[in-house]
C-alpha cells in the first residue's frame, strides 16, 4: 500500500507546511449551532486527530473542509488562499479526499464502479471515450486485497456487502485518490481489530508520504497511535488542542470521556 500512496502523492509536499487552515470557523444548521470558533491547521506529513462526544460537531467540521457544507463564520484557507468550496468536486480538485461517516457509496452500483466513481479511468480525455473496465476491476480488487478485504465478486452491487466491507471500499478509494489531504471520519468504527490495524497503517503511511491527514475517531487509543496533533470538541467548541508532545494517552482518554470510565466500568461489571 505504501507504493500506492507514493505513486499518487503530490511530490511537492513539504513536511510541516500548512495545507489547510481553519480560522475561527463556525457553522449553524438553520436554528441549530453545530460549530463555533474552531481553529485547526492540517500540516503536510502530519496527522491531526479530532475527537469528541457524539454530536460534538466532528462530522460537521470535516464536511466544511470537504466542500459538502459551506461554513457560516470564519475562514478556511487552503495553501494559504481563503476558499469556500461550493462542491466536493472543488475540494477534490485541491487534492482533498474524504471518507464520510454516513454517505459513502452508491448501493446499486458495482463495487469497482464505486471505487472509481468520480475518477474513472478512460482511454482518453474525450468525455465519451471508453472506460478501461478491466484495469479498473483489477485495481479495485488489488487495492481491496491490500486491506485484507476479499469481496466475493467485484461485479456485485456494493449494497450487498457488509457494513464494514463498504467502509473499506470507501477508505481504499480515498487513500488511492487522496493526493494531498486525506480526511477520515471514524474510519475504524465499523471495522474489526485486523482491518482497523490496516487502516491505521495506511494512515501512518499517508502521513509518511507527506500527506496531511485529518483523522476523526472515538477511540483515543487509535488516535494516539498515529496522531501528531489532537483536538477535542465538545458541543461544537474545542476544549483541548495540543501537540503530541504536550499530551499523554491517559489525558486524552480522561478528557474524552470524563476519566477512565472503561476501567471503572470493568470494575463495576466484574463478577
Amino acid at each position: 500500500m505504501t507504493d500506492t500512496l507514493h505513486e499518487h502523492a503530490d511530490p511537492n509536499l513539504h513536511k510541516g507546511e500548512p495545507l489547510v487552515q481553519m480560522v475561527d470557523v463556525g457553522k449553524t444548521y438553520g436554528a441549530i449551532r453545530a460549530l463555533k470558533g474552531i481553529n485547526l491547521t492540517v500540516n503536510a506529513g502530519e496527522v491531526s486527530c479530532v475527537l469528541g462526544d457524539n454530536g460534538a460537531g466532528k462530522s460537521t467540521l470535516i464536511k466544511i473542509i470537504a466542500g459538502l457544507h459551506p461554513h457560516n463564520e470564519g475562514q478556511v484557507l487552503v495553501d494559504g488562499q481563503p476558499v469556500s468550496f461550493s462542491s466536493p468536486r472543488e475540494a477534490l480538485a485541491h487534492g482533498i479526499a474524504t471518507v464520510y461517516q454516513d454517505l459513502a457509496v452508491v448501493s446499486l452500483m458495482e463495487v469497482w464502479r464505486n471505487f472509481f466513481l468520480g475518477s474513472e479511468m478512460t482511454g482518453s480525455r474525450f468525455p465519451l471515450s471508453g472506460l478501461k473496465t478491466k484495469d479498473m476491476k483489477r485495481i479495485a480488487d488489488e487495492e481491496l486485497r491490500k486491506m485484507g478485504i476479499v469481496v466475493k465478486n467485484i461485479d456485485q452491487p456494493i449494497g450487498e456487502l457488509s457494513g464494514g466491507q463498504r467502509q473499506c471500499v470507501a477508505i481504499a478509494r480515498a487513500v488511492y485518490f487522496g493526493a494531498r489531504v486525506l480526511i477520515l471520519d471514524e474510519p475504524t468504527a465499523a471495522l474489526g481489530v485486523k482491518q482497523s490495524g490496516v487502516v491505521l497503517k495506511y494512515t501512518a503511511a499517508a502521513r509518511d508520504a507527506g500527506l496531511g491527514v485529518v483523522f476523526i475517531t472515538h477511540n483515543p487509543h487509535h488516535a494516539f497511535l498515529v496522531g501528531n496533533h489532537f483536538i477535542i470538541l465538545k458541543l461544537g467548541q474545542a476544549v483541548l488542542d495540543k501537540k503530541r508532545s504536550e499530551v499523554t494517552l491517559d489525558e486524552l482518554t480522561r478528557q474524552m470521556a470524563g476519566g477512565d470510565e472503561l476501567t471503572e466500568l470493568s470494575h463495576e461489571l466484574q463478577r
Partner: protein
Amino acid sequence: MSQTVRTAPAGAPAEASNRVTLGLSNRLLARPEVGALVAAIVIFVFFLVVAPSFRSPSSLFTVLYASSVIGIVAVAVGLLMIGGEFDLSAGVITTTAGLFNAMFCFQLGINLWVGAILSLVFCLAIGFFNGYMVMRTGIPSFLITLGSFFVLQGANLGVTKLVTGSVSGPNPNQMDGYASLNFIFAHVFQIGPVALNITVIWWLIFAAAAAYVLQRTRIGNWIYAVGGNAASARAVGVPVTRVKIGLFMTVSFLGWFTGMHLLYNFNVLQAGLGVGNEFLYIIAAVVGGTLMTGGYGNTIGVAIGSFIFGMTSLGIVYAGWDPNWFRAFLGVMLLLAVLVNLYVKKLSTARKVG
C-alpha cells in the same frame, strides 16, 4: 447449472475462500433487460398465435415503426429516469419542435434547415431550463416539468392560433429543404414487400449509443451514480448538476428529433398533439426494467419496453378484439409484461452456487 465455484486451498480461508464467479446464465439473467426480453418474446408469440394478420412481415415493420416513434424519446427518458428524474414535458415538446420549425420558416419564408436548427436550439434551451430549475431550486422534477408541460401545451395552442389563425401548423412540403429533411427524418425504405421507416434505424442507433454511453463511459457511470445516490455521488466529486441538466437536454434533443419526424412525415401538426405521450415513455422505460427511483436500468431494456408497448397496442387491433375493451387488454398485457420481468429477475437471484 454452469456456475463455477473457485474454492481456495483450505489453508487460507480468510483470503479467498467463498469467492464466487457467477456462471454465464446467472450473469445474463441478472441484467435489467433480460426480463423485458423474455416478456417481449412471450407477448410476441402470443400474438403470433391469436392474430393471423400479425404474422406478415409487413405487420412486424408497422409494429417496429410504432415502437420507434415512442422508443426514440423513451431512450432519453430512460436515461433520465436512471439519473433519478422525470420529464413530463417530453410529450408536448415534440409538437413544440415541429410547430416551431414549420411556423418559423413559413412566416419568414426561409429554408427549413434554418428553422430545424433554431428549433433544436429552442428545445435544448427548454431542457436546460428544466434541469437548471430542478437543480437550482430542489423542487422535484415531476413538478417543474409539469409546469413546463402546461406552459408548452398552452403555448403550442396560443402561438399557433396567433400565427396561423387555426389550431394546426402550416404545411412545409413546398418549402426549401423539405426533401433532404424528409429523407433524414421520415424516409421509408421499400425492402421487397415491406416498408422500413428510417425512424426504426434511428431508434436502434440511439438505443445502442445510449447503451454504450451508460455501460462504457465515465458519463454513464455518473448517470447511474446521480440516480442511485446523488449525495454520495456529489461527495466523491461527480458533477451532479451538470449530469442532470445534460440528461434533461438529452430528453429535449430526442423530443426535438421525434418532432422533426412528425413534421416531415405528417407535414401538418395539430397544436394539441403529443399530450399523454410523456407517460408512454415512462411506461416503456419502466416495463423495460428501469427503476422508478433511479440508479438502475438500461436503454436496451427501454427499447424492448417500447417494443412491448407498440406490439401490445397494435396486436390487440390485429387480433380484432372488441375495441371497447382495448384499454383493459392493454392494462392486462402491461401487468403481464411486468410480472414476467419480475419473475425472471427472481430466477436470477434464486439460483444458488454456494
